[in-house]
């Protein structure tokens, strides 16, 4: 079954061999003495440590991009290889066998979410200007989606972008943006943000949004204040972003005016599918099995069930991904399927937390320097992913309403966003 999805694409084993040759030319293969990938879900680093981790990751991204592996799934004329999603999966699988620099979250967002969205919605000029630097890691872009009053109800964003007739930084005419964004991973390192802002408060809330690529740093940037938020697991991957008259030229508008919602949905759908199939190689079911084997006769009988459940959930997720690859050979997974993939991953996380509780007990809550204590960071990170990129509840709504056609809850608010109107 190792066949190519299209006749003009390489056979999977041929691709795998090519990828392996490339990786072997640049990286050391993993072996027993390699440091195992961390099991933590959030890196738990300080800002300074985050910055240090980003440098080798960007260098490695550049090497990959220059060799044609930077964005395997994007069309060739848009900086990619024009190969189906299975080729990226195989690449990631092979990369895990080598000591590659880990990909910090902001780089994943920049390359896989923002660049992919730009490849789809960007004008030819925007693509020409941004795709190469984004895909090579030269510049970094974050998302500017959630707000304090627009979490699950993302379409209710209140941040306003208003047209200004006078020239703005970098362009002859543009927009001035005022509002507050939150939970923006990596904003502190980002050059640009994929911004969803309200441009028309007088139409139904989904229709009054527009997307922009907002400059966050560099000469001429003002009215942008980025403040880190420390998350519950201890690290500071995300931020609050205060926008006070920040300027964006009209040529950095992403999609048409009023088209912000479909642009956001595109990014979110990629995000859900990505977090489900993502390169967090640490906390695999195989890792749980290894740990259980090392415990030997000390393994509690009751730990076996959550281990097998985590393993089943992981396989379901893997085969579901392969099934989507077969169903959508050119990518573009629809929203409900992205939600299913994400929920399958969350199910794995839940079982993993249960398994390490049954395996390790005390080491989990008091650092005794043993393997069990490493899993504390995993347990502390798991609640975050039940929320990030669409809460479990929102994902259930997406599946129920869009895959099953169940009616939405009646919404008491008027068709117009109260936030936008106020």
């Amino acid at each position, binding site marked *: 079954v190792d066949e190519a999805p299209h006749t003009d694409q390489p056979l999977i084993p041929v691709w795998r061999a090519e990828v392996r040759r490339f990786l072997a030319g640049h990286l050391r293969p993993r072996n027993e003495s390699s440091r195992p990938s961390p099991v933590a879900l959030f890196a738990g680093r300080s800002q300074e440590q985050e910055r240090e981790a980003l440098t080798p990751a960007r260098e490695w991204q550049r090497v990959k991009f220059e060799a044609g592996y930077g964005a395997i799934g994007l069309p060739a004329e848009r900086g990619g290889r024009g190969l189906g999603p299975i080729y990226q999966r195989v690449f990631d699988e092979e990369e895990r066998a080598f000591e590659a620099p880990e990909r910090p979250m902001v780089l994943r967002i920049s390359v896989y979410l923002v660049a992919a969205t730009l490849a789809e919605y960007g004008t030819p000029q925007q693509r020409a200007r941004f795709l190469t630097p984004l895909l090579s890691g030269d510049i970094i872009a974050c998302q500017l989606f959630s707000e304090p009053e627009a979490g699950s109800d993302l379409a209710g964003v209140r941040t306003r972008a208003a047209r200004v007739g006078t020239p703005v930084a970098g362009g002859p005419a543009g927009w001035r943006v005022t509002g507050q964004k939150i939970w923006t991973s990596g904003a502190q390192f980002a050059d640009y943000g994929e911004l969803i802002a309200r441009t028309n408060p007088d139409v139904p809330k989904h229709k009054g949004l527009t997307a922009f690529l907002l400059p966050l740093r560099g000469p001429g940037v003002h009215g942008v204040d980025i403040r880190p938020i420390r998350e519950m697991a201890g690290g500071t991957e995300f931020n609050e972003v205060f926008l006070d008259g920040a300027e964006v030229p009209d040529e950095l508008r992403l999609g048409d005016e009023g088209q912000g919602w479909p642009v956001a949905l595109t990014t979110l759908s990629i995000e859900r599918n990505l977090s489900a199939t993502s390169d967090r190689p640490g906390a695999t079911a195989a890792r749980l099995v290894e740990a259980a084997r090392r415990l030997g006769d000390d393994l509690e009988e009751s730990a076996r069930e959550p281990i*097998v459940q985590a*393993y089943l959930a992981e396989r379901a997720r893997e085969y*579901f991904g*392969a099934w989507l690859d*077969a169903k959508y050979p050119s990518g573009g997974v629809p929203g409900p*399927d992205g939600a299913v993939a994400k929920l399958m991953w969350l199910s794995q996380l839940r079982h993993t937390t249960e398994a390490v509780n049954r395996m390790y007990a005390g080491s989990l809550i008091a650092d005794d320097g043993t393997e069990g204590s490493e899993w504390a960071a995993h347990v502390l990170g798991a609640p975050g992913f039940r929320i990030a990129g669409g809460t479990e509840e929102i994902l259930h709504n997406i599946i*129920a309403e869009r895959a099953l056609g169940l009616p939405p809850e009646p919404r008491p608010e008027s068709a117009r966003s109260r936030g936008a109107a106020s």
Partner: protein
Amino acid sequence: MTALAAPTPEQEELRASARKFLAERASLDDTVRLAGSAAGYDEAVWRIMGEQLGWPALLVPDEYDGAGASFAELSVLLEEMGAVLYSGPFLASAVLTTTALLCCGDESAKRDYLPRLAAGDLIGTLAVYEDNGRHDPSQVRCRAARSGSGWRLDGTKTLVLDASVAGLLLVAARGDEDPGLFAVDTPAAVAAGTAEVVTLRVMDDTRRLSTVTLRGCPAVSVGPSGAGLAVTLDLAAVALAAEQVGGAQQALDDAVAYAKTRWQFGRPVGSFQAVKHRCADMYMAVQGARAVTAHAIATAAASTPGQQPDRDLGHASSLAKAYCSDAFFAVASENIQVHGGIGFTWEHSAHRYFRRAQSGRVLFGDPSWHRRRVLAAAGLSEQR
């Protein structure tokens, strides 16, 4: 990671025609109506499947008058049959018996039986379990003793599918040396009093299960069992998983359809998140079941039936059976819950899916057996 193939146009066509035929001739209403009859299923429909549709011939190779298709085509039918809880002897005859002969049978046994099984003229079944039906083919105690040119069997088998309607019973038994598979002409043995078939009172009456007691029952050796029997049971579990996907999808569809039309508090109950989230979880369970089954079917289709143990198949099979059994059971349970009171009535179909799901969890290996195998394949065998 395995690449999965999208369905071929031929498979899509097979699915559409199977769905149409089953809806017209073997709907759940028909099945319920015939459950108490002598045969327990519609024999005329079975004859059409054999003579006109060629379904029992799917897995049989060309040289034995079969269609030479793969597990991928078979699974399409099984899914559709699972959706309507089809009660004819397809699983016992066209899957279990046919696969057992392909995996264990010597050339003469294949020539004797496969063409008739393919035509649907002969209904076969496989008797493996003893005592309480624990799924461990290595624990077979049924004895086979040489008698002239043939054999005589002594022992009791249980949870035998469709033994009451089968002309051919393949029995796993222990000879002087290696365990083997032996063919019994069931009607003749019952008439002679060397075999007794007792139909069991079952939770799911769309599947007939029997105890078969053999007392000096004449039999013909068809070949060694051993690894071939293990492969047969692995393939049976994959087949059952495919059926479970179909059943789970139907139970989900029923629940969703009801949630859209049943109104309470002035709105469809499916607009309440408490209900719609339940439905979304059911959908997720079905999608997961589809995915692991697609993988198991691809593995089964790539394997060659024979005497060699197939580790990939064993792994994929236990994974699919463990996952789909749980998924179908969860979805069938939630289907009742979404329906509320009406879902707990005898007249409603919901309990039939629940019964089929519960029965399927245990058949061909219970949840504990398949979990042990999944963990062993993942690298964690039992310690003590």
